[in-house]
């Protein structure tokens, strides 16, 4: 580690770690990040840029890193791309590699893009890849897909566990630098429940990278330690390190992402990898600090060019000297101390180029005393170097011109354009940003939530001021949440910067591109490193007519990478403003979106995976069906047996057998999943009359009717048999999927439209098991099992309901049929369902009873022309369209949907109407969804008049049948229509949808 200083830093030099990067082994120390360890080994080249594949090095020391995106691979499954090396904590045995390069980082074929970059300016893809059209699918798309993106996604399922937790607190402090810690101390003092979180491994924030500052008479980091200990000892305070507040949602709901095991060489098996906190805070203090801005000049992206503050952090926090021969370019005071620190560490500082014409005299003097040449009125005209910067060309600014001045050799170029307050979370909370002229940046303006920013993130830059601001914010936060709480007195901090040059003025800075020579350099001046957006791209957007920041952002993609423009937004804004010749605040800023930094999918999924992803609803006969080898299908959250294949049968064969058995002897089917709602009360019939299209007043007790529910738009919404159990009690059934919707609609009308009606609703879907017994032998099977009910045709006609007992348990017996055969539906309390099923099945064996599934059920009802809402209807079908106008209660003054049905368009004769289709000779089974045409041989665009809604092979009839919606279908009986398919047109004949037993003799048996 040639670049590790002999002492200093917060690393643990007693714990040597080994790691591998791009196949090469290196050493580091506990406490290093991957970035600091690589720099300690003199490694600067770590990436190839997104578009141009330019060699890139580490730019920063934190979350704002745009360049150093790496993949960390524990194993094939624990393979994480696109991590910022500056935030990857080093552990023994860590294996990482660079991305977006082939065959290697040093020799990347993609660098061709850089040579051809004239063809790849911003928005190039809007103007290219259009010709020839066929080339898109075969050439352009595959190539672009391979070239796009940075890291590779893992190919195996994520084996780690992710936890989730909800938490409530009085005060949430986001950020634990000096302002955040001061806020936490103040809030905790008053007894409030406080949660403090920070994305770093330890609290301290900016103090971790600074050196030699004293707070209240002690070393700053010692003050941090003491403060943390005090907070830790408080049972009402939670401290969360490695935890990023990534999203600020309405009503002070904040998302925290806690990383638990990624920094460990061997994660304990019992621990989750990460934890998502969803915190509802009474009050929030944002203490998120400020991010240093780079300078925009030609060639500002070579490896070895980084932010000055980052170099200082690497030195003071990690004991790493970033180079041997350093040049510093700055527009603000803070970089002077960086130059002095590096000089003291043994690096040569060849020059300190100040963009300003009059740098502070004391700082310049201190620099010169250390042997550093200070050059005011500087600009940068360009840099040289391939895989590492090797020289910089400075310019001298005067009289509105930039004259070429010096070329200085260096292996490291540090730049500082000032500090941008981090307003991401504030912006996410929908607070309004305000432009600060003196600071030349956006700061929090009016809050939208109960929240307050403190310290550098609101432009309070000096350490002493930040501490005071934090303490005030913490006390404020408590006061706003707990009326009458003891408000801590104004806190004073004694800060001694020990004659360090920091803090003199942190409000200086530079926005936009540095002054350029004339003619300007052809080299690229980068604004957004991660998306390879240059100053020229931004000016191009402006020339092409994009004026709104929203357009410029999307056209150039500046600020749209995973770093969300942390180091680029303000510079981009300044360049655009200059192009448009308007003040920066007039251009505006786009909205920051969560997450602040990327969050794993696993964290959001939490425990909702595998079996816990969705509840599984099973019918009473489920176990029985599973043991018989039933193949199940999903209907919403329900598992329903679709068919029961016997040895050697495919679905077609099984369904054919099941259908024949039902019509020939008897079938057994579980209909428990259908929705059931009890409508009870003195006004139950009136309620049903107003809601359903049918008339219910005349329905006698002990009788049932097929009911249809429309919405007020007149379209069929649901259907089902409705039985009158008592004068004031209706048993309403719905489709399986529609049950929750129907109940919701009923409640809506009951509570908000007709609150005067005496009626209440109960869902009984889960309370009743419903066993359908269908077929000519149905009565023979059930008679011996049922007590107290006369099952004869006279006593229990079709659509009658009776109470009794079956196998000794309570029974509500419906004589109903969805098959067109003699049919009954046995309703017993659900707990008895499985047992009663088995009893019926046993009794049925003597009568040829066969179990059947939903597929056979669909075929049998289609043979009878019964609709299935949601399959034969799609929300645009009226009762008349479906051939059900007979069900409408004609004398009712009003019902839901009636008014809409009066509209002329709802009565038009050419509306799509429900019909049957028979394929002509050859007998193909039509595809559901296939379109229908009136004439054959059409070419696109075709004139289409309808579509196939249901289609099956009918074993009872011996030919395929289909149901369809066809324009003016009822007037087309006997007509020949065509179903255009890729293989040619299929001829069909329009028929009645009732294919089987049209007179209904069998159902009335």
């Amino acid at each position: 580690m040639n670049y590790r200083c002999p002492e200093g830093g917060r690393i643990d030099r007693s714990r040597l770690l080994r790691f591998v990067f791009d196949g090469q082994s290196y050493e580091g120390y506990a406490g290093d990040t991957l970035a600091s360890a690589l720099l300690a080994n003199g490694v600067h080249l770590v990436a190839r840029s997104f578009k141009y594949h330019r060699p890139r090095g580490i730019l920063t020391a934190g979350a704002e890193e745009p360049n150093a995106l790496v993949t960390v691979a524990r194993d094939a499954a624990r393979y994480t791309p696109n991590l910022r090396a500056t935030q990857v904590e080093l552990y023994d045995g860590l294996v990482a590699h660079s991305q977006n390069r082939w065959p290697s980082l040093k020799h990347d074929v993609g660098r061709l893009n850089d040579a051809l970059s004239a063809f790849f300016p911003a928005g190039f893809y809007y103007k290219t890849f259009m010709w020839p059209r066929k080339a898109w699918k075969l050439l352009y798309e595959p190539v672009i897909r391979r070239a796009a993106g940075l890291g590779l996604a893992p190919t195996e399922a994520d084996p780690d566990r992710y936890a989730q937790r909800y938490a409530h607190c009085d005060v949430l402090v986001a950020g634990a630098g000096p302002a955040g810690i001061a806020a936490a101390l103040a809030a905790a003092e008053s007894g409030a429940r406080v949660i403090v979180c920070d994305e770093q491994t330890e609290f301290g924030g900016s103090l971790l990278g600074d050196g030699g500052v004293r707070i209240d008479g002690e070393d700053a980091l010692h003050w941090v330690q003491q403060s943390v200990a005090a907070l830790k000892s408080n049972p009402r305070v939670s401290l969360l390190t490695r935890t990023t507040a990534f999203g600020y949602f309405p009503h002070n709901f904040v998302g925290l992402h806690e990383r638990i095991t990624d920094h460990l060489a061997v994660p304990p098996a019992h621990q989750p990898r990460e934890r998502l906190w969803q915190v509802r805070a009474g009050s929030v203090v944002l203490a998120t600090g400020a991010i240093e801005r780079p300078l925009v000049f030609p060639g500002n992206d070579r490896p070895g060019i980084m932010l000055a503050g980052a170099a200082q952090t690497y030195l003071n926090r990690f004991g790493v000297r970033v180079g041997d021969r350093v040049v510093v370019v700055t527009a603000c005071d803070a970089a002077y101390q960086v130059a002095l620190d590096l000089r003291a560490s043994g690096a040569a500082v060849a020059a300190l180029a100040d963009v300003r014409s009059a740098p502070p005299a004391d700082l310049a003097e201190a620099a010169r005393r250390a042997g550093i040449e200070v050059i005011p009125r500087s600009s940068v005209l360009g840099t040289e170097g391939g895989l590492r910067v090797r020289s910089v060309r400075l310019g001298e600014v005067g009289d509105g011109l930039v004259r070429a001045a010096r070329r200085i050799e260096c292996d490291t170029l540090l730049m500082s354009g000032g500090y941008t307050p981090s307003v991401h979370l504030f912006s996410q909370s929908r607070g309004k940003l305000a432009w600060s002229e003196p600071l030349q940046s956006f700061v929090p303006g009016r809050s939208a939530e109960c929240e307050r920013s403190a310290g550098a993130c609101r432009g309070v830059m000096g350490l002493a001021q930040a501490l005071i601001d934090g303490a005030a914010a913490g006390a404020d936060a408590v006061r706003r949440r707990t009326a009458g709480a003891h408000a801590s007195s104004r806190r004073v901090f004694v800060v001694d910067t020990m004659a360090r040059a920091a803090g003199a003025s942190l409000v200086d800075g530079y926005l936009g591109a540095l002054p350029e020579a004339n003619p300007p350099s052809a080299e690229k001046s980068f604004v957004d490193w991660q998306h390879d957006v240059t100053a020229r791209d931004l000016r191009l957007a402006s020339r092409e007519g994009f004026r709104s920041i929203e357009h410029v952002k999307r056209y150039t993609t500046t600020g749209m990478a995973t770093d969300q423009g942390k180091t680029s937004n303000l510079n981009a804004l300044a360049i655009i403003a200059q192009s448009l010749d308007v003040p920066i605040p007039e251009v505006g800023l786009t909205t920051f979106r969560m997450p602040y930094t990327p969050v794993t999918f696993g964290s959001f999924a939490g425990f909702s995976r595998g079996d816990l992803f969705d509840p599984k609803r099973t019918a009473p006969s489920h176990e029985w069906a599973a043991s018989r080898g039933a193949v199940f299908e999903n209907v919403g959250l329900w598992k329903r047996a679709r068919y029961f294949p016997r040895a050697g049968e495919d679905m077609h064969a099984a369904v054919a057998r099941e259908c024949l058995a039902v019509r020939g002897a008897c079938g057994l089917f579980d209909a428990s999943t259908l929705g059931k709602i009890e409508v009870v009360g003195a006004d139950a019939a009136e309620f049903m009359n107003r809601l359903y299209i049918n008339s219910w007043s005349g329905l006698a007790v002990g009788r049932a009717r097929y009911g249809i529910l429309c919405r007020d738009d007149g379209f069929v919404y649901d259907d089902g048999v409705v039985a009158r159990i008592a004068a004031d009690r209706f048993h309403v059934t719905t489709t399986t999927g529609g049950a929750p919707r129907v109940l919701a609609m009923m409640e809506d009308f009951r509570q908000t439209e007709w609150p005067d009606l005496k009626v209440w609703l109960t869902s009984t879907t889960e309370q009743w098991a419903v066993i359908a017994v269908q077929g000519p032998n149905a009565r023979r099977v059930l008679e011996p099992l049922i007590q107290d009910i006369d099952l004869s045709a006279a006593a229990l006609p079709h659509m009658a309901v009776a109470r009794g007992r079956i196998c000794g348990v309570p029974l509500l017996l419906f004589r109903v049929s969805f098959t067109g055969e003699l049919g009954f539906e046995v309703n017993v309390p659900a707990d008895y369902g499985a047992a009663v099923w088995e009893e019926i099945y046993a009794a049925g064996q003597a009568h040829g009873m066969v179990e059947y599934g939903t597929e056979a059920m669909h075929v049998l009802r289609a043979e009878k022309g019964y609709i299935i809402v949601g399959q034969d209807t799609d929300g645009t079908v009226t009762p008349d369209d479906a051939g059900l106008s007979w069900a409408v209660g004609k004398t009712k003054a009003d019902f839901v949907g009636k008014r809409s049905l009066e509209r002329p368009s709802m009565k038009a004769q050419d509306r799509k109407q429900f019909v049957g289709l028979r394929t002509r000779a050859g007998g193909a089974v039509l595809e559901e969804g296939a379109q229908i045409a009136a004439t054959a041989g059409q070419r696109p665009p075709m004139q289409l008049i309808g579509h196939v809604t249901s289609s099956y092979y009918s074993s009872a009839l011996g030919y395929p049948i289909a149901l369809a919606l066809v324009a003016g279908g009822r007037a087309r009986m006997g007509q020949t229509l065509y179903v255009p398919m890729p293989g040619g047109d299929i001829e069909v004949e329009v028929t009645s949808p009732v294919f089987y037993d049209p007179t209904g003799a069998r159902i009335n048996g």
Partner: protein
Amino acid sequence: MLLIACPYCGNRPEIEFSYGGEAHLVRAANPALLDDQTWTDFLYMRSNTKGVYAERWRHVRGCGRFFNALRDTTTDHFLAVYKTGEPRPALDGGDA
């Protein structure tokens, strides 16, 4: 996730509720008397206010009741909740 104050149950998280659209939409006592345009407007046209919006919520995973709320659609702040059937409250300094 919004925090919504059910008038019956108090503050509960948004996932316990289902949204009920614009409030105070009056279904005519006799829709047959309305012309097609008026009826269509009732079915499909909504105020969609940018600002204070009167809307319905149902505490479907709690007490099951509908209630009304005034919410500022630009900030998601709830300004008032009131029971079904109650008139829209006037806000301080603003109009109802």
